[in-house]
């Protein structure tokens, strides 16, 4: 008989989300819903009427983890709307900033997922905070990779957390030859560490993939080989940076995107009738509690070609590098494989960077209200910002962030997993829930917006 169990809130990810799961007698998920319960904040509404310089600053405050991805996507959406091409050296600095951000983000995610994994050859789960080896040297390497990523980001982007250097039309400043050299030295050191860390993580993940069982709260839970498999497609715009509507051949298609409402996708009201007080961090939701994912979900459901899609490292690697593995472990493997690419990208950009080149466009138009979009391949996946700018003011703004794309896809990927390891499936997406939580477009409004956009 189907029972309903709920894990709320989920842990070791960014933001507040929960899992409402219908499970069979063996505890295998028949139908799962993963949804954001972070309060809706309405950044898109706040942006209307602000200047095109202000909005990227506002967008960068949506979340504490992703300021760099949002600053870049938002700035470039404005540039796409006003039709402003930026100088090559400005673009190179942005790519360096972007790659450095991804480098430290992968390392951060390593800390979040390692407690799910075993130290290869042992029955001991990895505790990043343990005083013994291998934890100490792995953590020291992770911290150094993050330091390197943040320092390169601070040099190219002006600041380590909220980048101050990007602006509409390019960048405020180029870097000095000495700063360029420092970034190159750090990227070379980072490359060695990134390779080591990738090799380590791949061993840990492959070891886990070969296991039959994992321990959760003292119980042995079977580990399916198809953990996290789903039949939704993948979406990626570039292996590293992204695309925009200014590109000669854009790799994202506005016409294929449609936002639908959560009640088309999530389950209706259910009553919790399965409970496990021993589940880590305070047990699952109490029996008798009502849950209503349709009404509680705080995100819209974006679709591409009429279906939710997966975005992120696995989507990038399967779109551009013939990576053909599926499921949760494939997502982890793909993410580690992006480690060295970040450093190679930084080094390649530095090779081409002219420190005396100009970094600001000669002419920055004020915009005529045309729709422009920019897609940025953030650590967690495709981050699309769309804007209409007229006379320097933002008329319309929309953010389609990676985790919003992944919410409905991941919900489908939960089917077939024992409920006790459902959170492992969620963590495979490296979710950032706060970013994903926006205004829900109501039907009437949506129609009007869609019709108007068709004419532009």
């Amino acid at each position: 008989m189907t029972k309903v169990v709920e894990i709320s809130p989920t842990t070791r990810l960014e933001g507040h989300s929960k899992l409402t799961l219908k499970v069979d007698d063996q505890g295998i998920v028949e139908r799962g819903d993963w949804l954001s319960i972070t309060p809706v904040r309405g950044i898109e509404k706040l942006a209307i009427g602000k200047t095109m310089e202000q909005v990227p600053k506002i967008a960068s405050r949506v979340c504490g983890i992703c300021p760099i991805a949002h600053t870049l996507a938002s700035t470039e959406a404005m540039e796409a709307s006003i039709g402003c091409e930026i100088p090559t050296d400005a673009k190179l600095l942005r790519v360096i900033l972007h790659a450095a951000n991804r480098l430290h983000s992968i390392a951060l995610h390593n800390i979040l997922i390692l407690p799910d994994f075993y130290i290869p050859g042992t029955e001991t789960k990895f505790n990043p905070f343990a005083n013994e080896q291998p934890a100490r040297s792995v953590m020291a390497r992770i911290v150094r990779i993050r330091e390197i990523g943040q320092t390169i980001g601070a040099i190219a982007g002006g600041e380590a957390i909220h980048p101050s250097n990007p602006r509409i039309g390019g960048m405020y400043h180029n870097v000095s030859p000495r700063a360029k050299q420092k970034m190159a030295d750090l990227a070379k050191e980072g490359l060695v560490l990134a390779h080591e860390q990738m090799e380590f993580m791949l061993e840990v993940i492959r070891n886990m993939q070969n296991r039959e069982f994992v321990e959760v709260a003292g119980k042995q839970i079977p580990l399916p080989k198809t953990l996290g498999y789903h039949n939704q497609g993948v979406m990626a715009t570039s292996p590293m940076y992204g695309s925009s509507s200014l590109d000669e051949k854009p790799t994202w298609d506005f016409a294929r995107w449609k936002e639908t409402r959560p009640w088309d996708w999530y389950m209706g009201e259910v009553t919790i009738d399965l409970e496990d007080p021993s589940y880590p961090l305070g047990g699952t939701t109490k029996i008798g509690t009502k849950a209503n994912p349709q009404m509680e979900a705080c995100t819209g459901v974006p679709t591409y070609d009429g279906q939710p899609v997966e975005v992120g490292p696995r989507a990038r690697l399967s779109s551009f590098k013939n990576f053909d593995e599926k499921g949760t472990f494939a997502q982890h493997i793909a993410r580690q494989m992006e480690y060295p690419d970040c450093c190679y990208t930084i080094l390649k950009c530095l090779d081409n960077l002219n420190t005396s080149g100009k970094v600001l466009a000669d002419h920055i138009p004020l915009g005529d209200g045309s729709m422009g979009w920019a897609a940025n391949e953030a650590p967690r996946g495709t981050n699309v910002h769309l804007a209409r700018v007229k006379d320097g003011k933002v008329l319309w703004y929309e953010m389609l962030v990676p985790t919003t794309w992944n919410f409905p896809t991941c919900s489908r990927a939960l089917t077939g997993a024992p409920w006790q390891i459902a959170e492992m499936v969620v963590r495979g997406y490296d979710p950032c829930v706060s970013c994903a939580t926006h205004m829900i477009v109501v039907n009437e409004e949506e129609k009007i917006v869609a019709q108007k956009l068709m004419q532009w």
Partner: protein
Amino acid sequence: METLYSEIVVAGCGNPLYADDGLGPAVVERLKDLELPENVTVVDAGLGGPHFIFTLLNPKSTKTLIIVDIADFGGEPGELRWLTVDELPVGSYRDAHSWDLTEPLQYIKDDIRIRVLACQKKYVSAPDMVIGITDEVQKAIPGAVSEILKEIGMKYETA
């Protein structure tokens, strides 16, 4: 290993989209307009403090961490007060994404001197987004700047 970080790190925490919560970044903005000694790094930590600040510190090179943020210590709106880590109640100093900042601060307080400059809030709009710091808290900004300058050992006359 080459150390990347300076002796004194000043971190302005908070989110300008939540009204008075924007104080930290606003103080940082003022500090950046000033010429500061080379051993000082001023960083707009935004709401990413717990995730990002700790990789900006290195016990080998960092001696002092100064945090600027709003707080609710029952004072008059705009009142400034220096707090120690032990005065921060555990769990009350959470960022929007539930990564506790107090616990990691407790871990490092023996290696790095931590000073917290708290300003009594008047209005924090979270979860709604409101841009703009209230007048009372706005008026505290010059005071906060000079407090920090004193703390880092600079005599800087503010008008």
